[in-house]
């Protein structure tokens, strides 16, 4: 679906690594995160992630608090899969290399995957990632960048 828009603009769309909290918010609430996922679906940007992040999304959606049935979770996950390109997880060795970069180790996968995939932007709500990764942006900032970029085309 994205190739047509890519050809029309004559410019390679930005590659954006999307964190689990952005996906879950975008699926469950209307707002900036939902808009970003939609832009990925129509090819105005290329959303990237890993199976590990999608496992986090699946686990979160399966939480009892959401009261979602298996069918409903499948609908949400198949929507995500149509909007995003899924790349390989970083290896254990690649994770070890950056083990000391974050205080909150559980966010390490996102940092290393973003670096490995050489994406243009990391969209996350995590404060430490936003502070330590120069190209990490909140969803609203990412949308502003995308809109500015498309206005200049």
């Amino acid at each position: 679906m994205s190739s047509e828009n890519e050809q029309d603009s004559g410019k390679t769309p930005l590659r954006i690594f999307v964190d689990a909290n952005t996906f879950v918010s975008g699926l469950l609430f209307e707002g900036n995160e939902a808009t970003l996922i939609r832009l990925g679906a129509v090819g105005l940007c290329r959303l990237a992630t890993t199976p590990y992040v999608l496992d986090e999304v699946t686990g979160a959606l399966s939480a009892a608090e959401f009261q979602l049935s298996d069918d409903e979770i499948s609908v949400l996950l198949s929507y995500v899969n149509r909007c995003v390109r899924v790349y390989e997880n970083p290896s254990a060795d690649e994770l070890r290399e950056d083990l000391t970069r974050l205080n909150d180790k559980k966010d390490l996968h996102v940092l290393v995957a973003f670096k490995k995939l050489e994406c243009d932007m990391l969209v996350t709500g995590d404060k430490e990632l936003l502070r330590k990764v120069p190209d990490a942006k909140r969803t609203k900032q990412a949308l502003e960048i995308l809109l500015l970029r498309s206005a200049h085309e």
Partner: protein
Amino acid sequence: MAISKKSLDRPLRVESDLSYVSKVTSAGQLTIPKVLRKKLALRESSLVVLDEVGDVVVLRPFEADERSLSILRRKLKKTGLTRDRVNRIVERERARLWKDTAKDLR
């Protein structure tokens, strides 16, 4: 039924009211019959999803996904869950997965 290539310049209804034959162009495009476009509310620039199901490809409007999402969002709204609560649930899941990953890094 004898079908010539010329006769397929426009989609042709075959066998039953539910099937059509349509010719693929050199650019990989194909025409969706008007009756189906109307039924699915497809207009110019509408997006469609192509699902591969074994040897079969199912075409459906992308907006259908959006409709499904809207229904689920309305259901979720009734549970009273906020974005903050949702973020905490994602964090909890991240911590759970990290426990397993951390074991592999030792």
